């Protein structure tokens, strides 16, 4: 038997800004899943169902799409009846991470690994206000140097540290 007390004790106190609110997220999720299932059902029909002997390209997406459609309806009903509580989304963190990954993706090939890591770290650390810009730059420099040593020098991955140098 585990000696865990209860899962709710021993947790850090809920941080500020996470006041829980009623939301329609669960229902929206069910609707999104239902829409997804329709895409696969109709896509499956278009790709062709084939025969029992030669199941077509669309058969499996069609079958799983149909099952998902039914399940999504049940999930929607369930969510509607038992209103879930949830955290409000943290848009600033969300956007910072999205931007950090995007900058990495758009610079890794063009500028090289080291600049990509450097910029990505600085952008990712945007939501944090306890670090100065200088601190963020130092963090970026340390992480990019470490990545260079680890991935290019030690692991010998086929990345270029800097492009055009």
């Amino acid at each position, binding site marked *: 038997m585990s000696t865990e007390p209860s899962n709710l004790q021993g947790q850090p106190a809920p941080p500020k800004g996470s006041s829980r609110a009623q939301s329609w997220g669960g229902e929206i999720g069910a609707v999104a899943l239902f829409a997804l299932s329709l895409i696969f059902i109709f896509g499956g029909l278009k790709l062709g169902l084939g025969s029992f002997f030669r199941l077509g390209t669309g058969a499996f997406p069609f079958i799983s799409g149909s099952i998902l459609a039914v399940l999504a309806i049940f999930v929607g009903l369930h969510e509607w009846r038992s209103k879930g509580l949830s955290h409000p989304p943290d848009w600033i963190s969300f956007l910072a991470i999205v931007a950090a990954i995007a900058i990495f*993706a758009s610079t890794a090939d063009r500028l090289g690994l080291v600049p990509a890591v450097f910029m990505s770290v600085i952008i990712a650390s945007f939501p944090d206000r306890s670090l100065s810009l200088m601190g963020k730059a130092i963090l970026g420099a340390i992480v990019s140097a470490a990545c260079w040593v680890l991935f290019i020098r030690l692991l010998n991955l086929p990345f270029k540290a800097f492009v055009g140098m």
Partner: protein
Amino acid sequence: MDILSSFYSGLLVVLEPHNLMYCFIGVFVGTFIGVLPGIGSMAAIAMILPLTFYLEPTSALVMIAGVYYGAEYGGSIASILMNIPGTPAASITAIEGYPMAKKGRAGVALFSTATASFGGGMIGMIVMAALSPSLAKLALSFGPADYFAVILLGLIAASAVSNGGALKGITMVVAGLMLGTIGIDLTTGDLRYTMGIPELRDGVHIVIVAMGLFGVSEVIASIRTNKGGSIAQKIDYNHFYPTREEWKSLFAPIMRGGAIGSVFGALPGTGQTIAAAIAYAVEKRVNRAKNLFGTGVVPGVAVPEAANNSATQTAFIPTLTLGVPGSPPMAIVIGALMIYGITPGPRLLTEEPDLFWGLVASFLVGNVMLIILNIPLIGIWVRLLQIPYKYMYPTIIVLICIGVYSLNNNVFDIWLTLIIGAVGYWMKLYKFEPAPLLLGFVLGPLMEEQLRRAMLLSRGDPMVFLERPISATLIAITVAVLIYAFYAAIRAKKITASTSSEVQQEGPNT
């Protein structure tokens, strides 16, 4: 006994100092590479492969095997500490492991996984030593219809791998099945749902889905809530050891997980994922602490780990005796052997006994090394959590980017991770579980492949699924499980108000 003497001679081979050294290097390198997000056993083996060209076959295989299970174990470290699993099996470990880390018990979680990994590995090794020929025969008696049935059972188990209840679980599994169809159709070569994007021809890589749904969304959700260091990890060594009660609670799950893992591991292609899912689902039913599953309990973290590691060992059976690689890393193992002119196949056991028994014995030595190496390292891993999160999370993000980029050396994969990560964050907010989706995503294409193949081979007769004894048995079990789950759900609804379970689930996500 013949097996014992063979094993003994194998042990002598491995205990030669140079082999011992290669085994250690393998385990060591594997663990450290495996910890890096997105870089799993596959990449680790590929990296070390050129080095093995200079070794004799047994040393090479011992080292590769060390890297393989080292990396698998390293992967579970990352999923426990930071919720960034690189494989479906590790995502199941994360279900219990990550909440434990959040409660300041990362040390215990890592200690339990190390122990479970060792226990599972030993069970796998014993099974491999004693039953290789029969398990190879078992794998040979599996036709496409039987594989289909086993995957079906695995998917039902996968729906239990969530905290959100069976309905949402199975829904996410099916959603995963559908996403798995993206890409070129194996049977006809037609493109499906690729939206004209050439990079989607080969489908979406599992690591991209895992890194997006788990890694990226976890980081976004944690920036404001996780200060790092604020979770007091108990870092003195006494606190790494599970309590006496926990020790006792570890034994049975390891045995069950190891046994389930060793059987499924011998089935090429599906082994490890299904093993971990079924082992967890079974444990969730039979364990005395079953009501606490999902909140971070020791048996829950041990069981998928034992199953995974035991399956990792027995996965060598079809690889070596049938020449059928069960997973991409195993394909590299076959490739490495072929470089030495050794063709894996039914003859390997008789023609290369030193190699086979050396490998089996290396599992013993390697697992001992893994545990010797990792118990002291637990302190270091746990201290990672003491680093303020503001330094950690930008690093995690770039590591994820690099890991994903290294899959195909294509930045498109990073963009895809970004999109999946955004969806994953949304799923996290509204408690749509990513683990069942990941399992469905991995097993879906295999399921479709076997289904269509079974129908082709039976020339369109669906009765094949009920005529073959293996598939008929498995389908009967699946139906029974489904009926029971339905019955239990209806009964539970009548007895308890549904809200109480909602409150229970808040824990791990706080």
